[in-house]
């Protein structure tokens, strides 16, 4: 399936979960927050959320600012 991750289109195996995606994409999940199609995906749900083709995932963290 095709997912849009932080604005980039990426191919992923069908049935992949958020946890899979994060593991495959980021060096660590510390300090990470995730939104799927404009909704917050709490850390506790990552392992259970099965992703679907075409979804937009935002992977965020805190950076210097303000």
């Amino acid at each position: 399936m095709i997912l849009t991750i932080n604005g980039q289109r990426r191919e992923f195996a069908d049935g992949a979960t958020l946890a899979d995606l994060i593991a495959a994409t980021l060096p660590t999940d510390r300090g990470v927050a995730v939104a799927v199609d404009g909704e917050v995906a709490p850390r506790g749900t990552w392992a259970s959320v099965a992703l679907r083709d075409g979804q937009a995932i935002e992977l965020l963290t805190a950076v210097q600012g303000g």
Partner: protein
Amino acid sequence: MSDELVVAGEKLGSRLILGTGGAPSMQVIDEVLAASGTALCTVSMRRIDPSTTGSVLDVLAHHGVRLLPNTAGCRTAREAVLTAQLAREAVETDWVKLEVIADDDTLLPDAVELLDAAERLVADGFKVFPYTNDDPVLARRLQRVGCVAVMPLGAPIGSGLGILNPHNIELIVAEAEVPVVLDAGVGTASDAALAMELGCDAVLLASAVTRAQEPALMAVAMASAVAAGRLAHRAGRIPKREHARASSPTTGMAVL
């Protein structure tokens, strides 16, 4: 006598709140944190860049500084609320500096969206620190919906113009039932001192320190200025007089 700042039930060890934006390097942030003695710093939520090494969070943690995530760049209540929720996930705090700006030129807050977002975030259990304009009526409404502080601007973000309308800041302070934090506009130490003399409980600034020619030196200057302004406010300044008043004895002059 103790004079600690208490916000949202938490004691803060400093009345200087720092934004970490604008610093040229983590090294500078590290120096600035050490120099300022700040206890609360803002951070922004952005897309993860896997290539970046070293996190501002580590630097802040190393200095034992509390985090105040902001919603910088958000234009609508919806964006701001979602960003606040993501920040809560990421850094595990329910404190949020609420910014809802109207455009990228003025970076001025949008009263309508700001108030809407504040109400929703309070309902969702957040401790909301709204970045607002200097309208005393909006400040009043933000308190009514449950914000734990109000943070009026002195001048546009990054302008360094100081406090353009001290009269409004005084009006806000006069009726505030939560801490008032002067946010945005501070350019130099005397601006920060003035904010405190007007009765503000704290000052939040970023560019004035991070973009100064010598950030660490300016951080010390700001910490001293905030302390000075606070003390002057408590000490009770002399009234302004149109006419002079001698400070040396007017009697006992020799006839020479």
